[in-house]
């Protein structure tokens, strides 16, 4: 139906695991969050002039179907995430700049050894049923997510580090979380959108209650859900009276609906339709993002067990061409390092560029001239993967490397994690949690260590950073860990995808966010 490749936001089951997995992120800002003010009112987004109150906004969400859920702790598709973000709120927020902000907690502070964390609840926040939000509700919600027997999306890491016996609710407004190991970035785990606080930690599908700027009205899986403005919201109340979230299985239908003024916003606009929307007078919201589709080389298998071959392959890639051709130019350059949104991202390391001569010479040194390798790819990695693989094969010819691209359906089967040379998909995440899940041995938390990277020195640095409360010192440790990966790692990270969303011309108050589409789906700031 579509001739043009388009970024698909459909999630495979494994991608789901990844979106959820260990929460996103290590800390950017200070762990000491005093009530830094929520920015006053909605900023100007679309047009000029003050924002008007009232009205209904219909949001066209990508994906969704019979599996849709309104459970605060198990969202999967973009439609689920949009609903959850407006109905529920976590203790902290990731703001548009991917920094932590106070939400239902006024502060989340660690002890000097990062083993005991004190959560101070916001005064005056209420649930949609009128009850005040207490530390007890927060603790029971965390327990639901981090149940060691069946941890939910945000609870993977939490369930392992929380000492459930020693943690306790001190009073109405104070929760003390005790860990069984020092963990300096617990606050970042508590800021996930998948960790909304619900009364008593109990989710009632028939009557979902949260604290967000919009309260539940109706929900039909795969179709429509409606929400009404919550007048007693603790922050700035929403401009809109009603929010409708409509599922769209098809990108064309979604874009047509926007053009016909049937919906006012949509997430994940296909790149090839950007000009169509702009031409029709609609608005396009572009945000720097952190999604990446790396090539993965197994460092424990020939030919990639020779670091020179790995470096040669990293020099073969023409990164800008990758971005131009597979992301239609809507991306930023990668430097074989992940977590570009982390404040400790090693941006001082020189940008790696295509250097065929150097690559040839490295291959010659490694005795690997005329190398032939098989590159595994598949549609279920995402729409970027197969074109990127084909482009790599093309680029490798210049260095005398013959790459045979093998498209597997499905890619994520029992062979996944054992391919010698393949691709993978990752959403944005800060350095420490990403390093653990992607580069540690499986028994130490590396669930998706595609490259079979096993480097004690690197691991020690990451572990030390996770325990380090001092931010500057932690950044230093993270930088050193990144340098090891930059010099020896098995990942070719050529770029990061930008987030593109669209809105009608009359929509005001939208701001691009690095975290989630459409300014973290915060429709409370939006007016029509």
């Amino acid at each position, binding site marked *: *139906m579509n001739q043009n490749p388009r970024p698909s936001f459909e999630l495979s*089951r*494994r991608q789901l695991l990844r979106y959820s997995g260990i929460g996103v992120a290590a800390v950017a800002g200070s762990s000491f969050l005093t009530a830094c003010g929520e920015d006053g009112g909605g900023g100007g987004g679309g047009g000029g002039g003050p924002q008007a109150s009232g009205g209904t906004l*219909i949001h066209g969400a990508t994906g969704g*179907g*019979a*599996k*849709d*859920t309104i459970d605060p702790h198990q969202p999967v598709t973009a439609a689920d995430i949009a609903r959850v973000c407006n109905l529920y709120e976590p203790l902290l927020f990731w703001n548009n700049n991917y920094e932590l902000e106070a939400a239902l907690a006024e502060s989340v502070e660690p002890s000097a050894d990062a083993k005991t964390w004190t959560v101070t609840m916001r005064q005056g926040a209420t649930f949609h049923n009128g009850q005040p939000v207490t530390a007890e509700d927060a603790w029971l919600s965390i327990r639901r997510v981090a149940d060691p027997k*069946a941890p939910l999306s945000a609870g993977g890491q939490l369930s392992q580090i929380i000492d459930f016996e020693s943690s306790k609710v001190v009073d109405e407004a104070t929760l003390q979380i005790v860990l069984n190991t020092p963990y300096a970035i617990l606050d970042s785990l508590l800021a996930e959108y998948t960790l909304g606080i619900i009364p008593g930690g109990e989710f009632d599908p028939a009557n979902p209650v949260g604290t967000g700027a919009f309260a539940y*009205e*109706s*929900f*039909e*899986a*795969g*179709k*429509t*859900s*409606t929400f009404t403005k919550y007048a007693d919201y603790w922050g700035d109340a929403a401009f809109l009276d009603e929010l409708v979230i*409509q599922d*769209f*299985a*098809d990108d*064309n*239908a*979604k874009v*047509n*609906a926007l*053009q*016909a*003024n*049937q*919906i006012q916003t949509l997430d994940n606009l296909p790149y090839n339709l950007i000009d169509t929307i702009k031409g*029709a007078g609609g608005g396009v919201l572009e945000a720097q993002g952190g999604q990446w589709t790396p090539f993965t080389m197994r460092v424990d298998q020939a030919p990639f067990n020779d670091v020179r071959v790995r470096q040669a392959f990293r020099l073969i890639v023409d990164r800008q061409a990758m971005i131009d051709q597979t992301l239609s130019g809507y991306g930023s350059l990668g430097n074989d390092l992940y977590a570009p949104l982390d404040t400790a991202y090693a941006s001082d390391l020189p940008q790696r560029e295509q250097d065929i001569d150097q690559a040839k010479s490295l291959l010659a040194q490694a005795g690997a001239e005329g190398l032939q390798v098989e590159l595994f790819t598949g549609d279920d990695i995402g729409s970027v993967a197969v074109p990127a693989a084909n482009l790599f094969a093309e680029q490798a010819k210049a260095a005398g490397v013959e790459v045979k691209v093998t498209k597997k359906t499905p890619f*994520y089967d*029992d062979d*996944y994690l054992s391919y010698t040379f393949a691709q993978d998909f990752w959403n944005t995440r800060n350095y420490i949690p990403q390093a653990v899940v992607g580069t540690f041995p499986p028994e130490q938390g590396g669930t998706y260590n595609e490259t079979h990277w096993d480097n004690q020195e690197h691991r020690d640095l990451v572990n030390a950073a996770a325990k380090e409360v001092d931010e500057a010192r932690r950044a230093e440790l993270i930088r050193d860990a990144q340098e090891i990966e930059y010099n020896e790692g098995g990942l070719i990270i050529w770029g990061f995808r930008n987030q593109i969303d669209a809105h009608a011309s009359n929509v005001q108050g939208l701001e691009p966010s690095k975290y989630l589409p459409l300014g973290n789906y915060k429709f409370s700031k939006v007016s029509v």
Partner: protein
Amino acid sequence: MTQVATLPDPLAEVAPPRGRSGGAAWGLWLARRLGLAALTMWLVSVLVFVATAALGDPVRAILGRDYDSNVARRQQLEDQLGVGDSLVSRYLDWLGGLVTGDLGTSLANQQPVWGQISSTVTNTLVLVLLSALVMIPLAFGIAMISAHFRRKRPDTVIQTVLLALAGVPEFVTGILLVALFSTSVFNIFPAVTLVAPGGSPWDEPKGMVLPVATLVLAVTPYVSRIVRATLLEVLDSDYVELARLKGIPEPVVMRRHALLNAIVPGIQVIALQLAWLAGGVVLVETLFAYPGVGKQLVDSVRNHDVPMVQALSMIIAGVYIVVNLVADVLSILLTPRARTAISS
């Protein structure tokens, strides 16, 4: 007009012979057809069940890599699907539920299947019905005009347009209609169907226009071309020639003599087309975000939602069988020779 009455009327003349034997013969024939329909449904149920439940391991397909790690969920799914029981007893359980109207529980969201598909089935049937109401008179009208002007310019133009329409896939027609009437050129009709919670797609009648138009444009060429071809054949026949020689006006010849005899192949092709539409025109439903059977079936297959797939397959098969049965009955009632054959 008086001459008309003297002509043999194909409908009036060969009515089934009255009397005990004729009625009994009709009853017997209908019973046989219904029995055959039931038998077909049963065979379909076996096929559907074998294809969805018995081949492969649905639980493994649903859980994938979690099969070994998530024991609780596996247990729950296996209980729900009755994996431990023998194939025959599972089939009989399922068939029993089907006959008593209990379609089971969806694996994807643990809601009763019927509650989820009843509205989509209705939506699809309404869409098909509306399309049929527009399409049938349109197709016959076009065929009559075309046959009337046979091999003259209007006929050539009509045939070319119909052939072009038949050659374009229905979703392309849909995309063009949307671009023309809702996004790029005019902004008259909604581009997609937005259904308010608890509402129906036809709550906003304007929203039905483009989906119906797309389906009508997709189906009309086939029906129209078949009817035209039959009409031409009939128009060449001796009795039409005779009617003309008797001086009956051409419109009357066309309506009463030709059309009635050309209607039977038309009914058959309409039935096939409608059944095809009822099976869910996934692409059209997707394009207009119309909450119909096709989209739901695709979603269910993707979710490995066995009970939903089974229920939807059975309903689609049921529609095929009913539509074809109705078409057969109509055809026979309209074919004197077949009528006599049955009643004698």
